[in-house]
């Protein structure tokens, strides 16, 4: 197949299987691409089984069933069973919408290892507003059922300006629900979150206050609950080591079979991401142009090329460089060494200005109608 030949990349360890773009929720920070509505086809059950088998053979072991809402796939239990037979450690990343006790038992018997339930806020009103769907009470019930049936319970709350003031209540809710793991994911501004950034990005003061509360809580629950805290990189001066390095660890398969080095990479121009209907996972991982694009240092421009931290952060996030500077080869502008670093402060200022404005623009919810309008 076309592209560079990289003879010896590390094999994939984590596979994110985005089974579908269908979702009953409409979260305005969804990581799915803005134009998801135009990708209508979905891989068949046999396609997914083949993908799981091939990736496992290469060494993938952590598996996330994601979406959209993966529960909308009727073959979910069959895929979970296949994954378990192959030795994957599998995770259902779900809104909880449509998850019944019967289904929880069925998936457990099929070999599912854990369930990550997302909750949008600590109050019904705000949760249902952000989700665009009445779902709060059911989500709490699902969290109890997950626990009852012996799964490790992972609660995920995406943090942004609309709910950041609820940090103490969110933590209390996690404790009350008996979460074993709590993921406090400060919004990453790609996809829908990029569109809604002026409404979602907290101020530095809001972020620092929430972080202090979360850190104190983390210490108080040490040994009982693990907290994964995803830092909002707009308030950092060095970029994150995105995806642990491009094409080193993570493999995402989109609903239509397109293989992505990161779940946002669909937004990048000219990658020609390969489809699992045309190539094996091994060909895609080792030989495709897309997976070799940002491997190593050859692609780097200054200031990354001569930077002594380039093996630590790999130049940061290419999607962020593309969205904020228009050039995916640039250093992630989060880095204070980037000549484009000023765009971060501009984004922070624009969001603050919008929050003080009398006619704050409304959130754009993630649904097919808006997807078609925006793409």
């Amino acid at each position, binding site marked *: 197949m076309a592209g560079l030949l990289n003879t010896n990349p590390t*094999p994939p*360890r984590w596979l994110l299987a985005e089974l579908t773009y269908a979702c009953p929720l409409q979260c305005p920070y969804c990581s799915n691409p803005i134009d998801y509505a135009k990708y209508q086809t979905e891989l068949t059950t046999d396609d997914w089984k083949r993908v799981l088998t091939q990736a496992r*053979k*290469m*060494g993938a*072991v*952590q598996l996330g069933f994601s979406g959209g809402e993966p529960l909308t796939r009727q073959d979910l239990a069959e895929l979970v069973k296949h994954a378990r037979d192959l*030795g994957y*450690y599998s*995770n259902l990343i779900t809104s909880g919408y449509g998850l019944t006790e019967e289904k929880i038992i069925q998936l457990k018997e099929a070999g599912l*290892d*854990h369930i*990550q339930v997302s909750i949008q806020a600590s109050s019904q009103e705000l949760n249902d507003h952000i989700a665009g769907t009445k779902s709060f009470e059911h989500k709490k019930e699902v969290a109890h059922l997950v626990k009852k049936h*012996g*799964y*490790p319970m*992972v609660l995920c709350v995406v943090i942004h300006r609309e709910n950041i003031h609820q940090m103490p209540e969110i933590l209390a809710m996690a404790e009350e629900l008996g979460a*074993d*793991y709590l*993921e406090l994911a400060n919004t990453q501004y790609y996809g829908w979150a990029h569109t809604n950034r002026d409404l979602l990005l907290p101020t530095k003061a809001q972020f620092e206050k929430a972080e202090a509360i979360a850190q104190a809580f983390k210490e108080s629950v040490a*040994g009982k609950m*693990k907290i*994964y805290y995803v830092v909002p990189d707009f308030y950092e001066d060095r970029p994150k080591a995105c995806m642990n390095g491009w094409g080193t660890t993570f493999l995402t398969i989109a609903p239509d079979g397109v293989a992505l080095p990161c779940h946002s990479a669909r937004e990048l121009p000219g990658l020609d991401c390969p489809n699992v209907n045309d190539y094996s996972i091994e060909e895609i991982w080792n030989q495709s142009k897309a997976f070799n694009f940002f491997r190593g240092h050859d692609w780097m421009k200054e200031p990354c090329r001569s930077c002594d931290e380039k093996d630590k952060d790999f130049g940061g996030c290419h999607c962020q460089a593309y969205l904020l500077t228009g050039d995916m080869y640039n250093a992630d502008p989060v880095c204070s060494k980037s000549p484009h670093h000023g765009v971060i402060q501009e984004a922070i200022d624009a969001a603050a200005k919008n929050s003080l404005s009398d006619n704050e623009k409304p959130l754009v919810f993630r649904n097919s109608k808006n997807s078609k309008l925006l793409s």
Partner: protein
Amino acid sequence: MTLNTDLPIQFSRTHRLQWEEAQQKNVILYPEGMVELNQSSAEILKLCDGTRNLAQIVNELEQKFSTSGLTNDINAFLEIALQNGWITQH
């Protein structure tokens, strides 16, 4: 939380210990994470089946590897395992 040397030790029900052919090593899998184990750590954890306490695990491994004086090393590792939630005691 410290290890109770009298009580039996059980590998956590919410973690999984398995051999990874691709990596040629044992790993612990848990939500959002994986720990790669060296051979001795894996040997210790495999004996944490809820029937053996510290002394019994030490005894078994000393016999298996025809050696002695493993108590301190095994105790130290199991303390770490307990802090990380890989093992439980009831």
